[in-house]
């Protein structure tokens, strides 16, 4: 249980990434400029708070019932961004966001993964419900984003195709 802090200086990789027109517009990719780990902090993450049972479920309904005690209704106000085809199923960028007010929780589920619940977040007042992260998808699956707002559950979903990589 060693804890090593990572101290980084200004990244040398702040530069424009040029892409050919075949892939659409050129993009600006900016590496994080300053990464400073200056001190060790108290560990506030509490293992006892982990909803282990919800994460052990193999269906969306069971996972959400245990996590939130209910089922979501589809809502266009839940926005999610996930690729149509994952370039690698081990690292699939998924972003969820919503314009809804009073959001207290956001969850991501991968329906055809061995365990359905992938991640869940508690959103305190003042925190934006938009969260970007990267998920592992075991195979082609529907990814569901769930937002809890005013005690009610809303969802959006998107199928993500996971193909076998061809290159060794």
């Amino acid at each position, binding site marked *: 249980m060693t*804890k090593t802090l990572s101290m980084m200086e200004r990244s040398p990789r702040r530069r424009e990434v040029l892409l050919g027109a075949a892939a659409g517009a050129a993009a600006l990719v900016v590496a994080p400029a300053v990464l400073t*780990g200056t001190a060790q*902090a108290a*560990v*506030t993450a509490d293992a006892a708070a982990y909803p282990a049972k919800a994460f052990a479920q193999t269906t969306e309904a069971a996972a959400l019932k245990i996590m939130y005690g209910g089922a979501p209704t589809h809502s266009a106000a839940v926005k999610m961004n996930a690729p149509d085809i994952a370039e690698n199923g081990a690292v699939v960028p998924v972003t969820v966001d919503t314009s809804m007010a009073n959001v207290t929780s956001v969850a991501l589920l991968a329906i055809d993964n061995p*365990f359905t619940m992938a991640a869940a*977040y508690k959103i305190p007042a003042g925190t*934006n419900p938009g969260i970007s992260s990267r998920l592992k998808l075991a195979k082609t699956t529907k990814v569901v984003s769930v937002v809890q707002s005013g005690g009610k559950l809303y969802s959006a979903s998107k199928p993500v195709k996971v193909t076998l990589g061809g290159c060794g």
Partner: protein
Amino acid sequence: MAHQILIHASTASGMTTVEALVKHPMDSGFVKDKAGKIIPPHYIEVIEFTHAGKVVLTGFWGPAVSKNPFIKFSFKGGKSGDPISVSWVDNKGEKASVSSNIM
């Protein structure tokens, strides 16, 4: 094993955006090693971010979160120099934390 956490927080128009990359294998328990033995599950269960002592995000993760997890979110308020800290605990009881300042 050394636990590393890279964190980057910056403010713009009253919002603080936090990005973090956490070094962790996030083993799912469904993958075999070269010898054909199952690699036991080893993943972060709880990750928490605090700003000036107040919790701004609590994440619960399962084994479906990618290796070396990345997370990005934002919260209202926060100013340059404010302390931001992150800590995590995994299913084996290992834990780590780091503190930084908003740019």
